[in-house]
């Protein structure tokens, strides 16, 4: 089992003919993801040649792609200027999940896109996220497949490589994952920690969860309260950015301490106060998960 994506996921790739889109479509097909369609305006009727003789039809617009192929999920590799438009189009096409990889989407564009998707009951993951992978069944996005394995741990994170770090360490000691989800480093994101925790709690195969947060905003604090109130499964938490100065954006658009709010310290305290085991270093995550599962 897994959350959000599984072997029934039928994926349409928006921006399939671009450099990133085509590279990662190869990787996703290799992993076994059912990539059923691609969309690039003006290139409808062409075919994307994937690994192992895979042939993916390309459509001009999402509506056609979904109608022709029954796709239920989309992934967006469209440049920032056009990304919000692509997300709106996807949310209007009948897919249930839109995974937005693109970094650098204007935040006011995203405010509109999130409202639009909410009205239609469509889940957005991201933007500015690595996507997600359910080991053994499907991957959508850019997470490296070699580092994951099937197993009982759910992973949710605002970061990319820091997540890979944690996942790699888990896999190295034989602790596989149900699903690893990167929710993205932007200030306005579609799927939150709480959405993922809710799904992990409901997923029968997930026995423990790793939650990796960072400075900026209060999502971690709210997630911590949720863990205590609603979750039976153990959660291990880590927060990046203890040494980040206030007022400076640390790479991710959302990783900024505003005034006195959003510090690593207050997040770690919220974790500890609500019964989440706090890893002081990334290397401590594995041991805490082992303890939780023992």
């Amino acid at each position, binding site marked *: 089992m897994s959350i959000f994506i599984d072997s029934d996921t039928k994926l349409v790739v928006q921006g399939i003919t671009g450099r990133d889109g085509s590279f990662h479509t190869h990787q996703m097909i290799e992993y076994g993801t059912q990539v059923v369609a691609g969309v690039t305006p003006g290139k409808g009727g062409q075919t994307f040649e994937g690994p192992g003789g895979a042939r993916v039809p390309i459509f001009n617009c999402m509506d056609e792609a979904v109608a022709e192929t029954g796709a239920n999920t989309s992934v967006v590799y469209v440049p920032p200027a056009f990304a919000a438009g692509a997300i709106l189009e996807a949310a209007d096409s009948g897919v249930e999940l839109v995974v937005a990889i693109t970094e650098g989407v204007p935040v006011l564009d995203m*405010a509109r896109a999130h409202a639009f998707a909410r009205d239609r009951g469509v889940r957005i993951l991201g933007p500015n996220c690595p996507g997600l992978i359910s080991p053994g069944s499907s991957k959508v996005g*850019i997470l490296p497949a070699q580092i994951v394995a099937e197993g009982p741990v759910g992973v949710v994170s605002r970061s990319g490589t820091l997540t890979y770090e944690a996942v790699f360490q888990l896999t190295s000691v034989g602790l596989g994952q149900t699903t690893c989800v990167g929710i993205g480093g932007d200030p306005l994101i579609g799927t939150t920690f709480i959405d993922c925790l809710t799904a992990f709690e409901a997923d029968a195969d997930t026995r423990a969860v790793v939650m990796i947060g960072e400075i900026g905003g209060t999502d971690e604090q709210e997630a911590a309260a949720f863990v205590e109130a609603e979750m039976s499964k153990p959660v291990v938490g880590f927060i990046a950015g203890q*040494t980040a100065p206030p007022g*400076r954006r640390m790479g991710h658009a959302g990783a900024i301490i505003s005034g006195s709010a959003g510090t690593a310290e207050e997040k770690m305290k919220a974790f500890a106060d609500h019964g989440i085991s706090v890893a002081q270093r990334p290397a401590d995550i594995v041991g805490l998960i082992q303890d939780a599962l023992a």
Partner: protein
Amino acid sequence: MDIHEYQAKERFVAAGLPVPPGRIATTADEARSIAEEFSGPVMVKAQVHSGGRGKAGGVKYAADAAAAREHAEAILGMDIKGLTVETVLVTPAEDIETEAYVGVLVDRKNQAATFMVSAEGGMDIEEVAETKPDAIRRLAVDPRYGLLPHQAYWLANFLYDEPGHVKQATKAIGQLYDAFVNSGASMTEINPLITTPAGDVKAIDAKMSIDDNELFRRPEIETMRDTSAEPPSETKAREAGLSYVKLDGDVGCCVNGAGLAMATMDLVKYYGGEPANFLDIGGSSNPDKVVAALEIITSDPNVKAILFNIFGGITRCDDVANGIVEATGRIDIQVPIVIRLTGTNEELALEILEKAGFSAYTSMDDVVEKAVQLAAGEG
């Protein structure tokens, strides 16, 4: 990206907001001649990207042009929270009856542009929120409809009783929202929005931060960037497409990914060191990027050791290792470098690095501990 008060006021004026006239000066004599043109008392205001200008003595009332010259003389070159004042704004001093606060920012929780207004103007809004939360009225603007007229009126009504004031403030609030959206701002505020004895409502101070992600489509705002407000290394990093923040420590950090970069800095601190910087080189193994990163890190004289922490996912470790070897061959580096690579093809990568004479590690803790020792001269 933060813009200066005078630049934010330009955006306000373009949206129709009532802003008193003003001009900038970079010398005391210029400030005097501007004050002479305004013929009356003026304010001389330091233009720096920092709060607390007033407390630092960077905002002064001048009764006449001679006084304006004197104040400009004192303010230009002044250090305010580590920033040198290069420019002052000279603007007619207004008679102030009341001071209110009107601000808009992108609120994470509402996922929308959100207004905050308060009749308690002239002070820090975070402080008002803390001490008198009831003195603030908030409104999240539905991005599907924008700010509606009755909403602007509802906000203005919270600020004023006098119908004339309410009417002018309603209009100003709508104009502020336009300025916010049309500038691609992430935050803007008028503090204070004043009323004058003559019954006018005016915006006499202005703040605005632009969403960096908007700049590609707003070249007119990109030109407002003041690179004197940031270390040259940060300017260079931005031009090289690297995400870099200079800090005060001595362990230079070069990491792929923002989250991992922060975690690496934290680990430096954990082992008793201080990070010299945040730097995300991104996911590529391109030697040019590594060269740029190393040049930026080594331009900081505090750096005593350089630490690479790379997770090879889609980008394979051996590619990254080759990139580092090539890059370090191209520039002369005087401080020790330690490298940690893990992920796909890490064994191959270690071989490449060791052959090139580097200390290479696979454990993040080991490499950080080593870098901290080297920076302390104990390696």
